[in-house]
């Protein structure tokens, strides 16, 4: 109790690095928007179709986020309190959809939920009405598919952050599952869920390809899609900038709102590595098994379907594809390292309690339109550097920035715990600078760093958005995939999708695993 006052952290030199990174991020995102608006000589008015897109965007994002968060709870709880062989591997595997390149994921979802998919064939055989994956329900389905893993992961981390001692205390007090839920789990969920919901909401706010492939038509147009269309159809940069501004405004409003409902809970850290609580027996064992099994089927089946479709043509892929794969891997690694450096700087500054604006700036990329960002950078830099030379470095930079918010979701709580537990001790021992990084921060945050780095690498691997704008003669792997599809080579495209997926997954696994072993 009284020791709590000492945990408040030291009033030291301001965490300049964090403020700098946050400032640069905000300047970059708002600056590129301004550059686009400047090129267009002002913002253009939005028409009724744009406002319709805004409404649809908000609606689908809110629903997708709520569903993802709610469905993630039983899965995370089951994973937190059950131990079974292969659990670690399953936790990693369940993360797969989030890092799947969107185009690959859509292929998988269609293979399972499409008109010709297994589910509808079964329904047809049973004489039941079919389920259409095209339309708003397809958009929601895909968003839950993408974001359930992130939600499970974040909630699971919250669960594991409850010290084992608390559960032992609960046991010793004779708590039943309901009591445990009320006193330990619900407070944790209250603290974690708003953040989870917000994260998914923001991801879905900028959804693009999903809406365009599964939306069924223009009634499922999102704002990001409208931005793309403003670029492509009318080359209307003014409208693109206006839409970009609306998108950021919506997200900031959502973040402001979520700040008010988020109830921070401080969990002390036990010295022992948390070994999860023993789960309750009885029917709850079956219920947990069911939750895990359903999630596994939902999340892994599409992945397996894509694999099965693409594997046969894999050996026949031409060398150019492998070359593009190598280029993509190197770019993904560079993105990951950059994202880690930026993310860690921000998380440490936030953990030291440097104003909410740093956290807001760190989350800003999630709401920024990559298209506006890329175009703005292009406009700003074209007079200085040959644009061909820019394509790959800028793609690396933008991918790192785009991955930042996801990494931060994992890094910030861990950095806060680190600061609360060891900040004062490290300060009193004059442990700072590179030594603090090496001896305290990196070892303690290794799991979260691995997770964040893996996310950044995988997301960077699958990205397509920005690179098409910066025309290049050095195609990345996703670009190769599109080239194959654009040349009727659908079988090879499927194989390329498998390769892309396998590499994304391998990168994530290596980082995540490395972080947890460190």
């Amino acid at each position, binding site marked *: 109790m009284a020791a709590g006052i000492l945990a408040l952290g030291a009033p030291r030199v301001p965490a300049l690095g964090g403020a700098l990174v946050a400032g640069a991020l905000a300047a970059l995102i708002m600056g590129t928007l301004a550059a686009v608006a400047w090129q267009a000589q002002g913002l253009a008015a939005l028409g009724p*179709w744009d406002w319709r897109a805004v409404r649809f965007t908000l609606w689908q994002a809110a629903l997708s986020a709520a569903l993802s968060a709610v469905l993630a709870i039983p899965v995370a709880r089951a994973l937190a309190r059950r131990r079974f062989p292969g659990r670690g591997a399953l936790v990693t595997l369940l993360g797969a959809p989030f890092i799947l390149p969107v*185009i690959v994921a*859509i*292929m998988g979802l*269609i293979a399972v939920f*499409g*008109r*010709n998919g297994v589910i509808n064939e079964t329904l047809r055989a049973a004489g039941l009405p079919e389920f259409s994956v*095209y339309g708003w329900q*397809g958009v929601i389905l895909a968003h839950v598919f993408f974001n359930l893993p992130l939600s499970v992961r974040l909630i699971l981390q919250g669960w594991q952050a409850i010290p084992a001692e608390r559960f032992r205390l609960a046991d010793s007090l004779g708590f039943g599952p309901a009591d445990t839920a009320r006193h330990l789990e619900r407070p944790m969920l209250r603290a974690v869920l708003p953040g989870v919901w917000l994260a998914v909401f923001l991801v879905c706010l900028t959804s693009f390809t999903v809406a*365009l*492939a599964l*939306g*069924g*038509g*223009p*009634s499922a147009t999102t704002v990001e899609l409208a931005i*793309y*269309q403003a*670029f*492509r*159809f009318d*080359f209307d940069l003014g409208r693109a900038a206006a839409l970009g501004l609306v998108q950021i405004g919506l997200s900031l409003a959502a973040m402001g709102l979520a700040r008010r409902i988020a109830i921070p809970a401080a969990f002390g850290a036990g010295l022992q590595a948390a070994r999860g609580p023993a789960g309750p027996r009885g029917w709850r064992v079956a219920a947990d098994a069911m939750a895990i099994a359903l999630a596994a089927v939902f999340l892994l089946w599409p992945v397996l379907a894509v694999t099965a479709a693409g594997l046969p043509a894999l050996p026949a892929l031409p060398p*150019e594809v492998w070359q593009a794969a*190598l*280029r993509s891997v*190197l*770019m993904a*690694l*560079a993105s990951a390292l950059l994202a880690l450096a930026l993310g860690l700087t921000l998380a440490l500054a936030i953990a030291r309690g440097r104003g909410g604006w740093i956290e807001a700036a760190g989350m800003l990329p999630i709401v920024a339109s990559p298209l506006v960002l890329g175009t703005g950078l*292009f*406009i700003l830099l*074209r*007079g200085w550097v*040959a*644009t*061909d*030379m820019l*394509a*790959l470095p800028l793609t690396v930079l933008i991918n790192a920035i785009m991955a930042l918010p996801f990494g931060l979701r994992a890094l910030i709580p861990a950095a806060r715990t680190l600061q609360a537990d060891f900040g004062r001790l490290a300060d009193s021992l004059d442990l700072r600078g590179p030594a603090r990084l090496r001896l305290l921060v990196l070892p303690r945050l290794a799991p979260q760093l691995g997770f964040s780095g893996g996310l950044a690498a995988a997301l960077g691997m699958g990205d397509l958005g920005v*690179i*098409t*704008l*910066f*025309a*290049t*003669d*050095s*195609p990345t792997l996703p670009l*190769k995939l*599109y*080239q*194959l*599809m*654009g*040349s*009727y*080579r*659908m079988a090879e*495209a499927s194989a390329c999708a498998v390769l892309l997926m396998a590499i994304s997954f391998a990168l994530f696994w290596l980082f995540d695993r490395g972080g947890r072993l460190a």
Partner: protein
Amino acid sequence: MMRHLIPLALLAATPAVAQEKPVLTVYAGESVASEWGPGPKIEEGFEAFCACDLRFVTGDILPRLLMEGAATEADIVFGLNTDVTARARASGLFAPHGQDVSGLSLPIAWDDPIFLPYNWGETAFVYDETRLENPPTSFAGLLDAPDDLKIVIQDPRSSVSGLALLLWVKAAFGDAAPEAWARLAPKVLTVTKGWSESYGMFTEGEADMVLSYTTSPAYHIAAENDTTKHAAIFPEGQYFMAELAGQIASTDQPLLAQAFMDWILTPGFQEVIPLANWSLPAKLPQEQWPQVMRDLPRPEKTLFLSETEAQSLRDEALDEWLRAFSR
């Protein structure tokens, strides 16, 4: 190790500045320059006599060009679509191609002094006869078909083929276009961003018909020995599409650029098109087309809206389209 590899990979992205040969920079659409498109053969063919290095730079060419303006590094722009020429022309970036366009093998008259067509085809709904036994035989038949006949189309705001469909419906139905869309909309399974996603869904068996090209079946016949894919030919007409090349007025390689433009309509170039681009050559007598292209059923009627018509109709047509899908 990593430290050395990353700069290497980035280097691989930079133009081959070390070469002494002059470089002709060609902005091209994504599918053109891949090893599966016509790009490599075009590059090889041109470099065989130009004593230069032809470099394809791929991406969203028109937005990029409009942003770069006269400062663009492009010498040639390759792969613009007929429906977007108005905007490209208005940029004032292009120089006349200087070619004789009298004897083109196009179904429409062509007298554009700026943009030079190098291939063409028509939009068409493609189906698989093993899955669709009674395909509609006319556009009206398609509109009358039961709503469980599912088609996939592309978004006109992000795809040239989607835009072509918009103009196709406008050209075929005129003022009745809104009604046509109202009847077509329930059959649209989904609208995708580009042609690739649509065609992928079609080959996966998701849709009965896909908005594609009259020449699409040729790929399946020639490359896969698959004769089950057909383009439905409608008596109302198919909508004409061509891909165009243009030279940039501010080029620093005017001679090379002109040499490239001069080469486009020659047989050496045109013979590459059918089996690499899976479309029809712009200037090649029909008897010199590959057999597979000659065997394809040709539409009796070709629809095409001129640049000015297309430009004046597209906003209205887009609005009609949006309305049809927003009921």
